């Protein structure tokens, strides 16, 4: 059996067509959000555990925080 057309035929159309209702969030967006949350949580946990991750200005809680201290210069 043929699928019914999603909208009335043009001949039956008086100019007013049913507007499709609002569609929900696509699955790919939900997957994207879940992956992002997992990544953020992983980074947060590593930060709370004090794992160093480069020369950024952010330090783990309890650390000195703020700017990375300039390195000592060896005097001749």
């Amino acid at each position, binding site marked *: 059996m043929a699928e019914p057309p999603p909208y009335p035929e*043009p001949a039956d159309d008086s100019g007013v*067509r049913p507007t499709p209702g609002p569609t929900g969030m*696509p699955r790919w967006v939900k997957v994207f959000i879940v992956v992002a949350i997992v990544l953020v949580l992983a980074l947060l946990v590593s930060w709370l555990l004090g794992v160093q*991750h*480069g020369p*950024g200005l952010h330090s783990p809680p309890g650390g000195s925080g703020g*700017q990375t201290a300039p*390195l000592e*210069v*060896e005097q001749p």
Partner: protein
Amino acid sequence: MTMPPALRKVALATHLLFSVGWIGAVVAYLVLSVAAVTTQDAPTLRATWIAMDLTGWYAIVPLALGSLVTGVVMALGTKWGLFRHYWVLISFVLTVLAAVVLLLHMPGVSVLADAAREAEGAGLDGPGKHLYTRLDDGDLLHPALGLVVLLAIQVLNVYKPQGMTRYGQRKQAEERAARCSGASTRTSEECFSRDAAELCWN
């Protein structure tokens, strides 16, 4: 307000230039970071940090800001909009996030690049080895994660997966109602088909 086609092409070309340039500059930064982690040579270690500092401030930061600005211009100057489609919205959020992390991160790179400059003449195993504290840790996480984010944005921009936000659906319905009110049967068909056709140019 939508841009005329000629202006849109210029804006698109500029946006591509900044965005692809950003990815390329991050790849260069990542290569330098890997070299910083793996090298056993003091001059090379110092050079990598100085090069990362220069690459970051004079290539990555301008390209990132340029990509963000031109991306917003492209979104607002076309039918895509900034908040209408999930792929545009997610690309925008990720780009802002990447740019903010970059701007917060670079001052720390500069501090270590200054330390690398001051360590000139000191060896990795000699009495001046403490000068290299933290330099040999490298900086792999930030550029690696940044590259993943930029590639995700690139994939979204190329494939443009379907999906309209509630705001986008509401705006589309409003525009359709305005366009189709009182339209004849034929123009009604056309006004419905325009929703898709208008987004086919990119």
